[in-house]
């Protein structure tokens, strides 16, 4: 059996570690189930100097060292790969996750230390790669869903790996391989009284995918919207589409898992990291969340404060939870059930209150639904957490005014995220030329600059530059229409004299069609919500 070392890179260095890496924990569980010898070094939890990588790589004779994460962990991964290769020259270095799948050719060019990478969903691909390594065979060209190097170090993608059909066949993540106490120290979050007082929070994932086609979003290529096709040079490359395969765990799988976490680790809070709970509920014709809530209560997980209808305090027992919602897809009766079962807050990506922006966004919502969603959610007893973005391609003084006006009426204070074209998103491909122009042609410099969209990086607004967006962000935060009017009077007419900051273009890697990627067993291909 192969000796496998997983390294979880540091992400969001400016914040404390909050999330056990769900994907790595799942892959570690799968590797152990296949009989491999597995160790995990959770660099994100420990936050030690990067030189520690050398020590962990020399702790054993590793057959495979695996690293991966989101695009925003790229800086750490790049530095780690150099150290890994020096410290463990004989180990096969495997990459995976969002940072790789969104731009595999570029990553393999920038990180020559990588031997092989898993593209898209890795639940089947990864154990096949390990099996090959265990057999002493380093030719990965026959495995679906990988990027590998030929004898000349040129990178090649094999054909697309079909997504698994039944998520319940997955084992539970190997939480025991992570320093849980570090994560438990950071359990509290400022979204609700219940989450604020949480002492032992863990993340859970109930579903993969999302029926929406938001232009800023990329779902790690694991949700059925990814294809692999020959590009203009005849080399296989990733193509993202509007196709969607919607998959969710059964209520039994989720409730049994949370019950296990409650009994084993005494968790008091479960954070659903699903892309959007409501799109899953719509796909299930409104049965999924209802069943989940009923079984949550039946299993004894309902918090006592909800059971007894009393305010939450430190004596409350049970498991509170949170998730993501959608202004156009939530239903009052479902929200009430969710509150009854212990749901404390729901994140709503409202993004804007401007009709034109919302129409072009692919979100399937509009200004009226966004406005009404706050009251609907509040009425259920659940706290809405609305997210706002500034710097859309169509952003204008009018759109900012629409957003501020709604925020004032709804009593919401928000410091908006900046519209950011993350690799793999529709925006990224549409504005890749503009991004390159803003970073002197150095795409890697852009990737290394990316954070969590609270800082400004590449601008995709046609009208506003970074200078203006930084000011507008502050004006939205202050909800100050006087300052906005003044800024428009001073600058508005000059807009016609400036060059557009960003200009959209077509790209090979984005196919705006409802063509879904393959599933291991074909099921109903759900229509994207936003296109209906």
């Amino acid at each position, binding site marked *: 059996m192969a*000796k496998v*070392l997983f390294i979880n890179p540091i992400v969001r260095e*400016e914040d404390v570690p909050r999330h056990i890496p769900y994907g790595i924990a799942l892959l570690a569980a799968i590797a*152990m189930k296949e009989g491999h*010898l*597995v*160790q*995990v*070094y*959770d660099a994100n939890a*420990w*936050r*030690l*100097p990067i030189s*520690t990588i050398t*020590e*962990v790589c*020399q*702790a*054993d*004779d590793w057959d495979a060292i695996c690293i991966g994460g989101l695009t925003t962990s790229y800086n750490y991964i790049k530095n780690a790969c150099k150290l890994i290769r020096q410290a463990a020259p004989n180990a096969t270095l495997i990459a995976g996750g969002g940072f790789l799948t969104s731009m595999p050719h570029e990553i393999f060019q920038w990180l020559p230390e990588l031997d092989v990478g898993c593209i898209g969903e890795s639940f089947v691909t990864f154990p096949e790669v390990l099996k090959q390594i265990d057999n002493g065979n380093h030719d990965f060209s026959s495995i679906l869903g990988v990027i590998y190097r030929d004898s000349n170090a040129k990178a090649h993608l094999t054909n697309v790996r079909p997504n698994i059909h039944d998520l319940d066949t997955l084992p539970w993540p190997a939480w*025991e*391989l*992570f*320093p849980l106490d570090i994560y438990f120290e950071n359990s509290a979050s400022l979204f609700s009284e219940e989450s604020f007082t949480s002492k032992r929070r863990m993340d859970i994932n109930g579903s993969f995918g999302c029926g929406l086609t938001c232009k800023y979003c990329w779902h790690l290529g694991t949700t059925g919207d990814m294809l692999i096709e020959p590009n203009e040079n005849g080399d296989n490359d990733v193509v993202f589409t509007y196709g969607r395969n919607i998959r969710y765990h059964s209520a039994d799988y989720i409730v049994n898992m949370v019950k296990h976490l409650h009994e084993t680790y005494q968790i008091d809070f479960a954070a659903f990291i699903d892309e959007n709970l409501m799109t899953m509920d719509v796909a299930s014709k409104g049965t999924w969340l209802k069943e989940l809530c009923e079984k949550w209560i039946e299993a004894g997980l309902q918090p006592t404060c909800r059971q007894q209808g009393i305010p939450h305090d430190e004596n409350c027992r049970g498991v509170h939870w949170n998730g993501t919602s959608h202004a156009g897809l939530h239903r009052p009766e479902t929200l009430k059930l969710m509150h009854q079962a212990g749901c404390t807050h729901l994140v709503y990506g409202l993004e804007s209150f401007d009709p034109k922006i919302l129409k072009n966004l692919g979100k399937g919502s509009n200004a009226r639904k966004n406005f009404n969603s706050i009251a609907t959610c509040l009425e259920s007893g659940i706290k809405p957490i609305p997210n706002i973005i500034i710097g859309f391609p169509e952003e204008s003084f009018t759109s900012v005014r629409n957003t501020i006006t709604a925020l004032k009426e709804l009593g919401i204070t928000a410091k908006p995220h900046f519209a950011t074209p993350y690799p793999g998103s529709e925006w990224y491909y549409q504005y890749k030329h503009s991004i390159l122009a803003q970073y002197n042609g150095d795409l890697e410099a852009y990737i290394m600059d990316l954070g969590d969209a609270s800082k400004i990086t590449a601008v995709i607004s046609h009208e506003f530059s970074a200078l203006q967006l930084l000011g507008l962000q502050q004006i939205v935060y202050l909800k100050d229409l006087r300052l906005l009017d003044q800024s428009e009077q001073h600058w508005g007419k000059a807009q016609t004299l400036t060059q557009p900051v960003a200009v959209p273009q077509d790209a090979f890697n984005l196919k705006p069609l409802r063509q879904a990627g393959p599933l291991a067993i074909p099921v109903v291909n759900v229509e994207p919500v936003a296109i209906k």
Partner: protein
Amino acid sequence: MSNLLKGNFTPKKQVQANTQESEDSSLQAEFKKAALNSIGGSMVYVERTDLTWSGDDE
């Protein structure tokens, strides 16, 4: 001292976290983070510890 590696077997070599070192460095890092999060008005942060020219460089 905590073991940095967790897994389903015992590796040839244990890798321990040197908590003393990490605590020292994390105090600096923690202070920097807290200070940078409070920047505004009279709250500023000076990152450098030495700005005096030693005369060694051009």
